[in-house]
């Protein structure tokens, strides 16, 4: 497996091998699926749309509906305006969304289609919306695309001077529906009314009912997006993913924001809870305190299996930081932290985490790839790899257990229903990590060392 990866590391300036990121539009598509009655639309060649739908479906095992401007060579020469116009008409005719959320592609970006102008120029049926964001594939990553789509919704819909509505705007970060449900549970427990944008719960984890719904029950309501300007505050979860959109909302409507890491592990969840509490001024209810206490209990229980264990973590920047933060809380050493997404903020935040826990000799890298990660591992092995499906070849090549967390996980099921955030999510992470390490011990130790009690 991966037999051609040399141990010796040489500098690479041009070739990315086995990337740890993909392109913007897929993130925009995912974000747009988190708005109720909204159809994501890919303005480019139809292959983009096909690839992104395929990819999201593989991760969520649920339909990911989106349309395309279906560029041909002609459109590439003369611009995609007429394709978009036709598309919008056909979509409203046939698929009856309340909104079409357009994102661009490297094709339409390179051509230079002016989406603002094209949309202004359109006949949009009454009560319907067409919004857009620019997602050039040659900048940032799928995470950037997610952010840009969220910002796009705000730019088009949120209004300044909206009546205060006593709600908090939560920007969830690039997480699973299970996580979004967990946020809602926590906000609800703390009696904080929220609008979460986007909210893919109920969409990408929709139940089997025997009836296909193109627009399932879930998703942020368009009316709620329109009223975001009336929110007390924005809680932007995942600094790299959510802060830019929170800033857009602040600039546009004056809603102040607080930006914080994804609530993964103890401290990040504590901070999220306290942020909510500041708003509601409610006591943290016992059920949440109890969950928290159970988590701490578990962490102390399992520390002999986690403490000092080296882990390689790869994936999206905020997710990697969240996992690393919890790993550190478990006494683990996040030996390698890699994201493919560019951004110095990742490395700064990662290093700050390491410093806070007094952990040395670890590497944090943005714009990295899995080829490099594998080379590092060949040079100094780790006890565990945490990341998406693409880590499995490294895991097998080096005989290291892989715990699947983050995006994309395309070779397992059910994960997207299960939060990694909040205390409950941390319990899951703890179980996945501890069980992986213990399974490894059980299968790799000598027979005489098989333990009945652990």
């Amino acid at each position: 497996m991966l037999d051609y990866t040399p141990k010796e590391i040489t500098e690479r300036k041009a070739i990315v091998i086995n990337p740890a990121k993909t392109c913007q539009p897929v993130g925009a598509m995912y974000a747009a699926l988190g708005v109720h009655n909204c159809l994501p639309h890919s303005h480019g060649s139809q292959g983009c749309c096909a690839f992104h739908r395929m990819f999201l479906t593989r991760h969520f095992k649920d339909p990911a509906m989106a349309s395309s401007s279906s560029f041909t060579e002609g459109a590439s020469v003369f611009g995609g305006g007429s394709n978009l116009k036709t598309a919008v008409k056909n979509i409203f005719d046939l698929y009856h969304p309340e909104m079409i959320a357009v994102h661009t592609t490297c094709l339409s970006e390179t051509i230079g289609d002016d989406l603002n102008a094209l949309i202004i120029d359109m006949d949009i049926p009454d009560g319907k919306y067409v919004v857009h964001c620019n997602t050039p594939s040659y900048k940032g990553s799928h995470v950037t695309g997610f952010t840009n789509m969220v910002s796009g919704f705000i730019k088009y819909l949120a209004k300044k001077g909206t009546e205060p509505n006593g709600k908090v705007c939560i920007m969830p970060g690039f997480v699973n529906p299970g996580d979004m449900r967990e946020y809602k549970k926590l906000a609800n427990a703390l009696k904080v009314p929220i609008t979460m944008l986007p909210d893919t719960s109920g969409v990408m984890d929709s139940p089997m009912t025997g009836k296909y719904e193109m627009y399932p029950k879930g998703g942020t309501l368009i009316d709620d997006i329109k009223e975001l300007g009336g929110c007390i505050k924005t809680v932007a979860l995942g600094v790299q993913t959510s802060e830019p959109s929170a800033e857009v909302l602040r600039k546009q409507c004056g809603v102040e924001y607080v930006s914080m890491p994804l609530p993964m592990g103890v401290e990040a969840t504590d901070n999220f809870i306290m942020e909510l509490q500041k708003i509601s001024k409610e006591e943290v209810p016992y059920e949440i305190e109890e969950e928290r206490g159970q988590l701490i209990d578990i962490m102390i229980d399992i520390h002999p299996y986690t403490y000092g264990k080296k882990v390689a973590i790869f994936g999206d920047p905020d997710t990697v930081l969240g996992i690393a933060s919890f790993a550190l809380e478990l006494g683990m050493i996040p030996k390698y932290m890699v994201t493919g997404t560019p951004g110095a903020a990742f490395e700064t935040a990662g290093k700050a985490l390491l410093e806070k826990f007094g952990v040395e000799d670890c590497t944090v890298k943005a714009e990295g790839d899995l080829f490099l990660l594998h080379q590092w591992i060949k040079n100094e092995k780790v006890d565990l790899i945490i990341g998406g499906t693409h880590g499995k070849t490294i895991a097998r090549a080096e005989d290291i257990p892989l715990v699947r967390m983050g995006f994309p996980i395309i070779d397992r099921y059910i994960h997207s229903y299960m939060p990694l955030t909040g205390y409950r999510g941390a319990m899951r992470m703890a179980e996945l990590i501890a069980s992986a390490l213990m399974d490894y011990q059980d299968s790799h130790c000598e027979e005489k060392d098989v333990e009945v009690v652990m």
Partner: protein
Amino acid sequence: MSSVREKVLEQYSSRVYKNRKEHVIAIGEHEKDVVTANTRAIPGIITQRGCCFAGCKGVVLGPIKDAAIIVHGPIGCAYYSWGTRRHKAVADEKNGEKADCYLEYCFSTDMQESDIVFGGEKKLKKAIEEVVGLIHPKCIFICSTCPVGLIGDDIHAVAKWAQEEYEIKCIAFSCEGYKGVSQSAGHHIANNQLIRYIIGTGDHQPEKKYSVNVLGEYNIGGDGWEVEKILKRCGIEVVSVFTGSGSYRDIKNAHTASLNLVQCHRSINYVADMMKDKYGMDWIKVNFIGIESCKKSLRDIGEYFGDEELKARIEAVIADEEDAIRDEVEYYESKLKGKTAALYVGGSRSHHYQLLLKDFGISTVLAGYEFAHRDDYEGREVIPDIKPDADSKNIESIEVEADPKFYRVYMTDEQKAALEEKGVKINYYEGMFKGMDEGAIICDDLNHFETEEFMKILKPDIFFSGIKDKFVAQKSGMLSRQLHSYDYSGPYAGFRGAVNFGRDLVMGLYTPAWSYVKAPWKDTPCIEGTLGGDEAC
């Protein structure tokens, strides 16, 4: 009959109706079954089609294991086509020559904004240098994605440079996503370069008397290995496979084989055609999907070579393979007989699998192709009638000449006529229509809307398609199986593959979960006698 078709189409706006009515037909409705195919998808209509890049890099080139394929473009296209198409492959040695397997690797130039603005050729060159330095491939392919064509990077010049600089084979493929109307354009582009730069460049001769290339077999789920195994049992040497677990090492010797077997007509017929022109090699359309198809294909090969000993060996292999699966096939047939299916896949599978379904007594009520041309539906006889349009004209069509060194005539016209009489047609594909039942619906470029509507009316037991529409069907309570990826099962080719296929269908149809879709309280009023109430809740 037509009412089904009309019920769906009439919901369209007139403009869309006008377009789609040519793509949707009911078999037998008109005197001649004619379909419009290989035309643009309508913007906004949710098509399942992919792009030229997907057809070139994803389908045809991707499986070539010993070529390091550098995707020149932003990161996404490389990422999505990385290890996800189940064209299995393994490094191996053949005739003392090793073929590495790079399929676990994804190479991308990850173009950034500055590359778009200032051009990406330099970066591409550097990327090649780095790949050569790291893994020392004997062959590099460069595949371009959308922006590359627009900004004008000359990837062919780069390929030429690399070939000289590193003394390796390096070929560029201008397969930008916007070219053509579907993956089909990409197949053509890939085929062109293979014939131009690889086939005919090797000189290793087959060891056996009867040798073939298997064309259009991508080894999804190990299909190709199953086919190779059977051919080998029959004593037939496989020189090269296009392209499942195939290699630059083998493809360069393809011209040394005696016959081309074409499995997927759509994606590879260009190669078959051009090899006929250049090397004189005949091709026959085979289909190793389905028991009867498989038998017919093997026997056709026997007939083509006309060797009694070979034919006897083929019969023995058939008998043996059939014996081994008979009980299982019977069992699965008993569970599957009378079911109905809809198929919407690629450019050949929707045809091939109808035959396998027939083996189990399943009839097809709807079939469609994602990226086929009219000949895939109607048979090659229609080719002269196909008018090129603006989109197809943009895809280079190359002419080859008889190779002075290698051109041979394998068969006289007489021999061919004799063969035809035995039902073996040379250099011919009959298309999907001919075997289909009256009234079955044909949908070229079936889109999401039509899928939903036709499924509601036709209610097939099984919907065969890809990952994008799989869960749409499933959510509506219908078994859905992916025929691109086989839902990570397989092989489905050959005799043993038929059993796997039967097993998977039975498992899907009979899995108990279907019976729990409706919550029981939806039916049962919750009246409790003892509490005396009459109110339902």
